[in-house]
């Protein structure tokens, strides 16, 4: 995939993606970035740095918790995990996203 083929992320969906990634297990910032890159098969264009303001915003909202731990290669890293309210938020936002995409698909098929 060349750089031009990658899609820009619509507004506000980065939060949803982060929450989803963290719903399986806690990660640190870089790991989240790698996962997103891998799983989306490199389709999504996410400047890596923009992850961090989003992470801090989620932390502030109380949907994820941060704690310092040791990484795989024994370096100090900041791990994020989903909180209970975060899980609920993920549910809600996922539902909203699916409803939205279904509605758009219906209109496009008309």
């Amino acid at each position: 995939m060349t750089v031009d083929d990658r899609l820009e992320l619509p507004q506000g969906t980065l939060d949803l993606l982060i929450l989803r990634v963290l719903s399986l297990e806690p990660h640190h910032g870089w790991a989240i970035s790698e996962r997103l890159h891998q799983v989306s098969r490199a389709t999504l264009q996410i400047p890596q740095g923009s992850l961090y303001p989003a992470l801090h915003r989620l932390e502030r909202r109380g949907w994820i918790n941060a704690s310092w731990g040791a990484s795989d290669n024994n370096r100090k890293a900041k791990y994020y995990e989903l909180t209970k309210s975060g899980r609920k938020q993920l549910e809600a936002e996922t539902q909203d996203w699916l409803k939205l995409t279904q509605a758009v698909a219906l209109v496009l098929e008309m």
Partner: protein
Amino acid sequence: MFADLKYRVRVLFNRSTLEQELDDELRFHIEQETEKHIRNGMSAAEARRRALVAFGGMERIKDDVRDVRGLVWLDVARQDLRYALRGIRSAPGFTTAVVLTLGLGIGVNVAMFGIIDRLMVRPTTYLRDPTQVNRVYLNQMTRGKVRQIDGYEYTRYLDLERWTKSFDAFAPFANRTMAVGRGEEARERNVAAVGGRFFELFDARPALGRFILPAEDRTPRGADVAVLSHAFWETSYGSRPDVLGEQIHIGPSTFTIIGVAPKGFSGIVDEESPVAFIPITTHAAIERASNPSSYYTNYNWGWLEILVRRKPGVNVEAASADLTEAYRRSWDAERAMSRGMVAKEIALPRAIAGPVQVMRGPRAGKGAKVLTWISGVAVIVLIITCANVANLLLARALGRRREIAVRLALGASRGRLMAQLLAESLLLALLGGVAGLMLAVWGSALLRTALLPMGELPVAGFGDLRTLGFAGLMALVTGLLTGLAPLAHAGREDLVTSLKTGVREGSHRSSKTRNALLVFQGALSVVLLVCAGLFVRSLQNVRQMRLGFDVEPVLHISGNARGTPLKAVERASLFRRLEAEARAIPGVENAARSLTVPFRDTWSQGLFVPGIDSVRKLGSFTLQGGSPEFFRTAGTRIIRGRGITDEDRVGAERVAVVSEAMASTLWPRQNAIGQCMKMNADTTPCITVVGVAENMRQNSLIEDAQLHYYLPIEQFNPQEASLYVRTRGPAAQQAEAIRRRLQTLMPGSSYLNATPMSEIVGSRQRSWRMGATMFGAFGALALVLAALGLYSVIAYEVTQRRHEMGVRVALGADRTDIMRLVFGQALSFVVAGLVIGGAIALIAARWLGGLLFQVSPRDPFVYGVVGLLLLLVAVVASALPALRAARVNPIIALRFE
């Protein structure tokens, strides 16, 4: 939400830790990404570069995270503050000038606020429901004008209470001056006579004992109980807890102390705080001991004030109407007693439920007007101060034009730039506010002694919250006002022009507004200083005027029998003894008995002169009695003939000494000595004139007929005497010591009052003294501000024209030429100010003329002195910049941009 709060708290207190963590986190990310690329086969340098590119701008991401964290404005504010502090420290001269200027302007206003607050705004301490409490004001029409009545009858109070229905509490009260204490300790003090329900109007609890009960205040005479004020209890009783039950002498009676008022409680105080509170009916009964029931049955004695509390729901208009109705009924009741009284349809008696503070009510009088006028002047001074400081700040902003332009070009938002400039102004204003507060506390003492010499006002201290609040508010307003000018300027900045223009071309734009402001300041200073000068000269003339007696070394002592009745013979011999005793006191040069004292009382009796059919048509003749040493003690000169001697006794020939004016009025072109005059009737034996004394002023400093004669006191009225004492050195200093010494001779509870003549005469000079002090103070203030303004403008001009100076020097100008240039500029400002100010002063002089004393409002001496003063100030203010300009090195100046 709770999580958000926790987060914010963490952010607030752990800034540096969070910053470090963020740094670590991002660094970790870059390292991981770098290693990934290295594993894929890239070189270390290339891997790192890839990682950084993929990441995005590090600083921008950090800023975004900080934005998310919130509280960025705190950081920004701190940054601005630090920058402002640095700016202030780097220009100490500028800062001092600004802070001083602001301090003066704010300080004057804070001082005036303190006084006005106490007198007119602040509700009386401890008053319960202050919005419901009113003071009763009665007025009537006299000769077509509304006349406020000063002091009401007790009977009137009873009528009003009986015939109104709008009030749930009525409290008569009066502040009286009475002798408190016994023997040597006896002193005239302020005592409050209050109604039984007075204390119910206040939310105060006694510090000791209890307050006066309503049952203890009853006609015809209340209980002999007294409540001490807290301050009096502290100073005179050492805060002893066992004062309850002790007796205290107030006036001619003794009272039992039943309680002590809480700290700061002083009832309703108009001037001096009372030392004790006694029932009003007790006081009235004592005052009217000869006819005890009269004070509450007839309307002859008007002396008290009335405080009322409106029932809930009753507004002021309804209360006033109710009071007016009751007053009209009372008027009719009074008219039934005294036939000659005018009917209420003509006199139109009216009552108002008015403000508790006298200064705000219909009886405010001149005092309130003077205060309001002075605070108006203070506000004008503050406006000038703001203008001055705005000038200074603007000058500085102009000097930093290029710096601002560069910063704007580098991407700073205008909003941030403006916020930062504002921060500087606010910081300066804050410092100015602190300086102003300090100046106010020190300066308000000065203002008080000039404006309210009888009042005992508490000082506007640092601990006073309202004053502090006001000072803070002033500082804030001043900061905003003064900051506006450079802000407006920064907002309009044209980048390109500013960057391109150096100091070389046309940057020397003398702001017209700035110069006009400076000239206006100078003019105002001139006006105020001219007024001050005129008043000072008046005061000098008043002081130097020959009054016909000496002022500084003379003391007047009068006695008050205070219920210890003495027979006439006993009184006469008492004063003879006092005179002898006084002369024996070390420090006393001479002593003599007298009857009257100038400016306080005069004595007249019928005078007849053979050959003149009506002496009274020629004027009002007053007389004085004196013992043999009188003329030497008072310092009145004998011009012809002799004074009073020991031989002038009862049984000897009756003699008199007349004043020069009297001699020339009654016996023009003749020798007054040997002439005959008669007192009381045409048939009494002759009193021979044996001497002529110099003229004396005793009624007014301005005009006085001075028709006065002296009789030997032994021949006339030795029992009504008072004492003149002449001291070595100023009498005021020895007054108390002499009084104490003589007090020991006084029988019973009678006591003596000692008043230096300088105080008696001084009170007459008060209006000129007040004018001189007030105008002098404000004039000096305006002058200092103008000087500061002039200095700053000249200094700025010199800095801006440095390039031009360099060119001049290079072309051959020498130091004196440069200095002349600078001085010339300063002088042009001052001359303009002088001309305008002088013109205004000459025009305004018309209104001032009536207030002066033997000084023409166009007195050239005063104008000349003020002119010289201003020129001197101009030279001093521009000296430093002139020297700096003269020392300009042309090479540096030409190169410098």
